[in-house]
């Protein structure tokens, strides 16, 4: 596995977070752009989870399989939960929730690499 996808996710997550913080500062609600960005992040994360599952199916194993599986289940929930929870909010705090999701997605790439070093960043 090369590091293109996790690196893309880090950049996308941080860019999303930066934009969301600007929206919060501008006192804007969650808009179509931010929801679309969360959708893109969701797709990227699902592709990554698929690639990791394919590697597991291929017979490779990390030292701590239980933790990795926990991450594979939890990771795709992040943008989904942020989109729902943030869209319910009709104030600047909706984008703030999206900002958290972007940062968390980026941080989780580093964690994945720690759990299974074949997942490069």
């Amino acid at each position, binding site marked *: 596995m090369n590091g293109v996808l996790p690196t893309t996710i880090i950049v996308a997550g941080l860019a999303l977070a930066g934009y969301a913080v600007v929206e919060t500062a501008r006192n804007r609600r969650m808009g179509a752009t931010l929801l679309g960005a969360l959708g893109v992040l969701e797709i990227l994360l699902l592709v990554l989870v698929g690639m990791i599952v394919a590697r597991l199916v291929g017979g490779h194993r990390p030292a701590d399989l*239980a*933790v990795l599986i*926990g991450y594979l289940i*939890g990771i795709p929930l992040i943008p989904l939960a942020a989109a729902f*929870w*943030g869209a319910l*909010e*009709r104030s600047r705090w909706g984008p703030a*929730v999206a900002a*958290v999701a972007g940062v968390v997605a980026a941080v989780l790439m580093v964690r994945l690499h720690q759990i299974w070093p074949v997942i490069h960043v």
Partner: protein
Amino acid sequence: MSEPKAAPELSETQPTSTRTGPGRLLVAIYGLFALAASSRAAVQIATKFHHAPVAYVLSAFAGVVYIIATVTLTAGSRTARRICVVSCSIEFIGVVAVGTWSVLDPASFPDATVWSDYGIGYGFVPLVLPVFGLLWLRYWAKRDKTDTSAA
């Protein structure tokens, strides 16, 4: 969006519950930490408890504290807010106590907890989260006092 549009300045100045306005962000972060700390503790206790029992029990305790904060902030009733004040206080004391303990006696922590080194592994969010939680609850306690007719 199908949501009815509230006046933005109204929702900005007067959140309608502990889970809206700034509370939306607090619930999101508490929910995230509830999930992270409790699932991490569950895996650790189930698979390798004897490796670092102190750290894993403290992780589980932190997970419970985060779950209580998430649930009570979401519920937002007067009783829920009282419970949340207690749990956020315990959380703050816990971060400071476990943080200090882990710095003074690293041997007890062969594996990190959410609160090790004052939450450094989580960008010190565990240290500031209870402070913002308590500030948010104080805002609601003040609103209770000025708004006794609603009680």
